């Protein structure tokens, strides 16, 4: 029961990644691509946590934590670049 539901959730998340990559490849401006990068990070952080849960290794959580803490800096530096701030 729970496994089936989790499998469906995984398929939905994979679909979200596919759509975000579509926008990344098509996106007319660089800012659209930055949005796609943001969405992909937000999908992959729970993906890494799910990998940790399924494989039962708590140390994998540290990697997800690094991405959760640092990913916004990439988008923010892109924003400051468009602003001519860096």
């Amino acid at each position: 029961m729970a496994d089936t539901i989790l499998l469906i959730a995984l398929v939905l998340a994979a679909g979200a990644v596919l759509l975000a990559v579509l926008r990344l490849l098509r996106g007319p401006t660089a800012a659209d691509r930055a949005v796609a990068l943001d969405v992909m990070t937000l999908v992959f952080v729970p993906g890494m946590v799910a990998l940790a849960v399924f494989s039962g290794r708590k140390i994998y959580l540290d990697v997800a934590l690094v991405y959760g803490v640092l990913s916004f800096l990439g988008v923010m530096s892109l924003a400051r670049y468009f602003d001519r701030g860096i």
Partner: protein
Amino acid sequence: MTRKVVTLIALVAVAGLFLVLLRLGTPNELGTVSRHYVERGIAENRAANLVTSVVVNYRGLDTLGEVTVLFLSVTGAAFVLRRRERKPVDARASRASEIVQTGARLLVAPIMLFGVYIFVHGHLTPGGGFQGGAVVASGVLLLLLADRERELPHGLMAWLESLSGFAFIVAGLAGLWVAGSFLANRGVLPLGEWNRLLSAGIIPVIYTLIGLKVGSELAALLDVMMRGEAVAAGHGAARSGGGRRGGRTRGGKNRKKGGRR
């Protein structure tokens, strides 16, 4: 166009090959050296994370070389980009908004604390000096993104960087004196109990030194690059004159549409 499609197909084929190798290519038995690390590594160094004892102890000289390479590249970048007087690179540069500045003030301390956690716990959890140093430098990056004109404590950074490099060498020489080989772990510090913070002898000390060194070096690199004079300043200004607003993104869009079809 055709060439791109052919390249894409070839790369997808290589990807399929890699997927097959992912399942088939794992070797079933270890070599002599790897078997020694796997079987005796925990007993010899008592580090819960075996990778750490390979990186810092068994391949310690290699790590010293990596730190030196990073130091040399940062020094080179600083020599190329240094400038004497301060002036904004672009007069049209805008300041960060209030929300970004407040968020930066709020988040710098947690991010740096997280970096310190990564390199202090290098012998217990994944990560170590390089990763923790990169996270600390990202905290500095957040400060610089919120306010470009911010003055970092350069004297403190220079002292941290050189003292930690010096202490790394001293730790290696201590191993040479006590145990007879450079960067040896045996007998320099007590090994302690497995999976505790104060364990694994000299490994956490060295990883903390590496973390401080890498963090201050990367922060200095970011600082130098952000303040650095535009190499092609006159050139760029001449080309960007007029129609600047939106020209970059929209022009890029049109060119790209032509290019990708």
